[in-house]
């Protein structure tokens, strides 16, 4: 009985390895390569999380990694203002704009659609966990084809620093006090999440036209 249990126990990590191995199979870039977008308009994100500020916090972190990846990124605040001025007050409505209208008025090659799945800090007795998770979909404006999709996610736990139970309690208290005053960990986590999703070797975005081949040789 005991031996049988141990065998199953040993099998378990292999199952995990196998499953995560499946998730990192190389991405099919056929549509992305056919489309070769030069410019991306980021639509203010849809929000399925409980944090009402999540869409605009997240929006403020996306221009930089996309531009550094080599794309022309339309100015996010100006685009948001333009939509609002044209009778679309919330991200939910902005996400339903027909692609031909985006082509006609903005002239973008691709649209980045985002759905925020999880956002914010949860406090437990001896720890707190901050988490961001969003689905990203890059769509060709002319053909409507999906060029690329990914999940951007990052998590930070107050007891990541170690220090045992007492350390965890102290950390949790400090984190909660900080969270109630100034420091919101979500923009930093979102940057980490974006960096992994966009620049991942196996299934990140392809380089855009402004990406310099080698920055190390300057």
């Amino acid at each position, binding site marked *: 009985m005991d031996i049988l249990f141990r065998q199953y126990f040993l099998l378990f990590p292999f199952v995990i390895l196998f499953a995560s191995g499946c998730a990192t199979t190389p991405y099919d870039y056929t549509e992305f390569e056919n489309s070769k977008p030069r410019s991306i308009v980021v639509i203010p994100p849809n929000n399925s999380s409980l944090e009402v500020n999540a869409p605009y*916090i997240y*929006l403020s972190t996306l221009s930089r990694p996309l*531009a*550094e990846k080599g794309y*022309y990124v339309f100015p996010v605040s100006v685009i948001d203002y333009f939509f609002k001025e044209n009778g679309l007050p919330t991200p939910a409505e902005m996400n339903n704009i027909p692609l031909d209208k985006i082509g006609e*008025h903005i*002239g973008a090659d691709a649209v980045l659609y985002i759905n925020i799945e999880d956002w914010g800090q949860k406090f437990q007795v001896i720890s707190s966990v901050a988490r961001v998770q969003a689905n990203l979909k890059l769509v060709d404006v002319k053909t409507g084809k999906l060029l690329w999709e990914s999940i951007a996610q990052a998590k930070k736990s107050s007891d990541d620093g170690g220090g045992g139970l007492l350390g965890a309690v102290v950390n949790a208290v400090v984190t909660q006090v900080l969270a109630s005053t100034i420091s919101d960990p979500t923009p930093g986590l979102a940057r980490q999440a974006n960096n992994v999703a966009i*620049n991942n070797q196996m299934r990140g975005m392809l380089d855009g036209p402004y990406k310099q081949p080698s920055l190390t040789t300057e």
Partner: protein
Amino acid sequence: MSLGKWIMLPLCAVLFVSGCATNKEMYYWGEYEKLVHDSYIKPGSADPQMQIEKISTDIQKSEALSKKVAPGIYAHLGFLYAIQGQQSESKEAFMEEKALYPESSIFIDGMMSRAMKNESSN
């Protein structure tokens, strides 16, 4: 044991060097992300005039580093000037965005023609 250490050392060095190489950015971003964030999340903390000053300073810093001004920065500046009613400064910034990034032409031309209509109807 000591062999293991000697193998780890170059490995760490490689990781460190490649880490540096990938951290290099094409553009200077300065206050832009914070301004976008604060204008939504902390209403009143990033009024147009203050944003104009910070973005203009960032553009100077970017030029001092001989980096190209990042996508959207001049368009954002032109938009802020338009809100402030400074039409010639607005136009100048929009033209700059178009010159740097022709991908912005359709959107910028649309904004400029709407701004002109608003001006003539006032």
